[in-house]
């Protein structure tokens, strides 16, 4: 039984996970994040301007 387990364990292939390095995707994410931040900041600017009594 033990031998059987050891034998099968020995045969188990190791799977190596490598993180894909895709600079295009990263750049795209950064760009999208930046655009979202700009949008949010513009909304906050409006709030501060129109509701100065709340901030």
């Amino acid at each position: 039984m033990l031998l059987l387990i050891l034998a099968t364990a020995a045969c188990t292939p190791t799977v190596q996970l490598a993180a894909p390095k895709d600079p295009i995707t990263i750049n795209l994410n950064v760009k999208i994040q930046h655009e979202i931040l700009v949008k949010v900041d513009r909304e906050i600017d409006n709030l501060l301007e129109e509701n100065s009594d709340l901030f």
Partner: protein
Amino acid sequence: MLHAYKRVIWIMVLLLASLPAWALSLEQAKTQGLIGEQLNGYVGIVTASPSTELHSLVTDINQQRRALYQQSAQEASVTLEVFEIRAGQRLQGRAKTGEYLQDQNGQWRRK
């Protein structure tokens, strides 16, 4: 000429009168270090012995802020949480020297 001048004065008076009564109180409460800007885009109580009035001021301000954040977050297509965090950063950034700000550990620190 004089008429136009008078009208402008009137408009200014009316505008001032239309400001909510607690507009000054918020500013005062911040300057006096009774309240401060938290990290989450809302004001929090700094003083150890807050009055009932201060409690209701904070609740009132924060309720109104939340309603605005909800709308604006939708406009910017982000979650309320994201909007609140960014608002917190911005509000702490524009706070005046001497006012209290909440840090990452939840401690109040004078700017």
